[in-house]
């Protein structure tokens, strides 16, 4: 399927052709004052011209948040976050970034080059404040028209609230309620924007929906909220993220993603994320706390999460599936890489409620340098989940003797006809394997890359093609300096 290739190529060619439309900026009051209280919430809601019900929804979330405490995990070292010191709303365009690529960290530029990112896009990604680098509006328009013909809605959250309030109201918070957890509550109170998609019954979305061409608009993607709905018998594939390291002055990212798949529908959600990991000592990196959950509401619904995560000083995310419908299917494929001083605590939750529900988990962790990689998963089979099936495979690859890999699966079964199987292995890249590759003429870096890709193969093949190629390059870049 070349849909995604088409998408990206069109986008790239447009950016190279030049722009007819300038980037629209419309700024009155720029920023909310720092701090978080009910006034901040009202300010945000007013700025976005939201209906009352949504303001009330945000406030309810905020009140719930006030009663919660930030979670602590044994193996993550978090410098305390001062929630009152941050700004929770700022206009999309602010000239605080570097004025040209000359001012950008050369390491970053080298990475863009290795990942094959075209010149024009490097400026946007590096945060250079240029007027019109990337015209997301015209590109978005072209695709929206095509999708509209099929009845597919794909737009920003803000637009969805304005144009399709009923749909949003029906589904928002039904998979991740406001009081689900600390960061979800915070997100529900102050979410800035995000993606919304609705695919009508029986429709197969012809292209991969991607945030790729929303890079500019999503600059304030600190508290993103995404809601995807696949109606009965429909199919949609969604790509999130980008291989280029995303810098951001915002230390904390707390996003929420809700997926709803009705009977016989399928949602494929892929993420390739390369958050800026901070310098080699881990300073300045991004804290990435995400609540991602999919509900298979109807019979035979299917939700697949595929992710390649690297960078990020701290990643905490557990994409989950709630398998409500009978014969529903949940899948989780993940590669998590930690190098230098990165820490990742990731995994998934599969909750089996419907009969004959099935889940598959394949998690590959690669630790190098002083990275610490933890897989934390939950497979829970509820009493009514007759015939539930799960298979989990967690493998850790350790590169060097100063890193760590931890596997912590929770398996909780309340139905006798369920079958749950879990396997985990830990290994290293063998000296023998490295030498074998070198004896065939491969450099040590290429040898590591080859072996690591082999290790991650099962996960990488689940990614849409374009992403898979980027992901492989990303693996190589992330592991630089880890061997020898």
């Amino acid at each position, binding site marked *: 399927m070349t849909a995604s290739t088409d998408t990206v190529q069109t986008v790239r060619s447009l950016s190279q052709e030049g722009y007819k439309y300038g980037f629209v900026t419309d700024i009155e009051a720029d920023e909310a004052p720092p701090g978080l209280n009910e006034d901040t919430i009202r300010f945000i809601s007013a700025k976005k011209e939201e209906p009352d019900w949504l303001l009330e929804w945000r406030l309810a979330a905020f009140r719930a948040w006030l009663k919660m405490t930030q979670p602590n995990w044994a193996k993550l070292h978090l410098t305390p976050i001062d929630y009152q010191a941050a700004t929770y709303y700022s206009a999309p365009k602010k000239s605080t970034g570097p004025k040209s690529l000359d001012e950008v960290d050369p390491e970053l530029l080298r990475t863009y080059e290795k990942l094959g990112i075209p010149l024009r896009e490097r400026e946007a990604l590096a945060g250079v404040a240029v007027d019109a680098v990337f015209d997301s509006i015209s590109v978005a328009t072209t695709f929206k028209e095509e999708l509209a013909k099929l009845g597919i809605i794909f737009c920003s959250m803000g637009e969805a609230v304005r144009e399709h309030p009923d749909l949003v109201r029906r589904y928002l918070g039904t998979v991740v309620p406001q009081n689900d957890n600390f960061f979800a509550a915070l997100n529900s109170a102050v979410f800035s924007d995000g993606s919304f998609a609705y695919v009508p019954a029986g429709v197969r979305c012809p292209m991969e929906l991607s945030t790729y061409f929303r890079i500019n608009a999503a600059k304030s993607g600190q508290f993103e909220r995404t809601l995807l709905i696949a109606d009965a018998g429909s199919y949609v594939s969604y790509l999130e993220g980008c291989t280029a390291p995303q810098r951001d002055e915002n230390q904390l990212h707390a996003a929420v993603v809700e997926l709803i798949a009705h009977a016989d529908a399928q949602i494929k959600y892929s993420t390739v994320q390369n958050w800026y990991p901070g310098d080699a000592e881990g300073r300045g990196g991004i804290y990435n706390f995400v609540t991602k959950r999919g509900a298979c509401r109807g019979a035979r619904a299917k939700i697949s999460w595929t992710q390649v995560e690297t960078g990020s000083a701290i990643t905490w995310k557990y994409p989950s599936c709630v398998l409500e419908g009978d014969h529903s299917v949940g899948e989780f494929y993940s590669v998590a890489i930690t190098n230098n001083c990165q820490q990742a605590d990731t995994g998934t939750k599969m909750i089996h409620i419907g009969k004959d529900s099935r889940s598959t988990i394949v998690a590959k962790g690669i630790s190098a340098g002083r990275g610490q990689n933890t897989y934390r998963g939950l497979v829970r089979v509820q009493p009514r989940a007759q015939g539930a099936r799960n298979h989990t495979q967690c493998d850790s690859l350790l590169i060097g003797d100063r890193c760590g890999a931890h596997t912590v699966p929770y398996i909780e079964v309340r139905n006798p006809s369920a079958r749950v199987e879990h396997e985990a292995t830990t290994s290293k890249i063998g000296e023998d394997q490295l030498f074998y590759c*070198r004896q065939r003429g*491969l450099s040590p870096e290429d040898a590591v890359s080859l072996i690591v*890709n*082999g*290790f991650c193969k099962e996960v990488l093949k689940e990614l849409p093609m374009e992403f898979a190629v980027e992901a492989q390059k990303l693996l190589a870049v992330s592991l630089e300096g880890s061997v020898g």
Partner: protein
Amino acid sequence: MTAVVPMLEIRDLHAQLADGREILQGIDLSVNSGEVHAIMGPNGSGKSTLAAVLAGRDGYEVIAGEVAYLGRDLLAMPAEERAREGLFLAFQYPVELPGVNNMYFLRTAINAQRRHRGEPELDAGQFLRAVRAKLKLLEIDQDLLQRAVNVGFSGGEKKRNEIFQMAMLEPRLAILDETDSGLDIDALKVVAHGVNQQRAPDRAIVMITHYQRLLGYVEPDHVHVLQGGRIVESGDKDLAVELERSGYGLLGDAA
């Protein structure tokens, strides 16, 4: 008339393990283009150490001596550079690379070597054609190639895979480390056939072996006996036959 530069010239090579045990205690060996040499010896004589040191494996320290490969200082080159210069080692225990597709691995290696030599890389079509020809030669099943490198291969399949790689990479100097160990007679014949097909005037082959078996099928020009880390005797193929008959003890305390 230009002097013939030996393919491989080893002079007084001493090498020890990381724990200080000296295994190679003064090896002298000269291999010319077009020749096939056999190095035989009992267990512990240093055969595998020699192969490892020539290929550039970590864990060994050369404490004296020199090795010239096509006139260049071999010991100064890292392992992958030696490979790209045409030195091939067929491993005694080929390692497994889970998830790494056999074909993909081979093509990556071939192109790395071609790039080094300034030759154009092989595209998918060219590569496939070359593969098919060599597959037949070594009686390797097509679908073995679709699998991960050596994963789930029997002993014989692994050894044939090594010689298949040799055929694809077309090295100048091939070192075969106990390639015949663990093979039944049929596999041995196939492997020997594959090796023989690669004899050429501009190539040299060094077979390291404990038994005489392989040498019956791949006839060596020179046979050397390695014992106690030194070459204690050299001769032609008849020496191998005699060793087989009388055993290594015949050499007494030559070490």
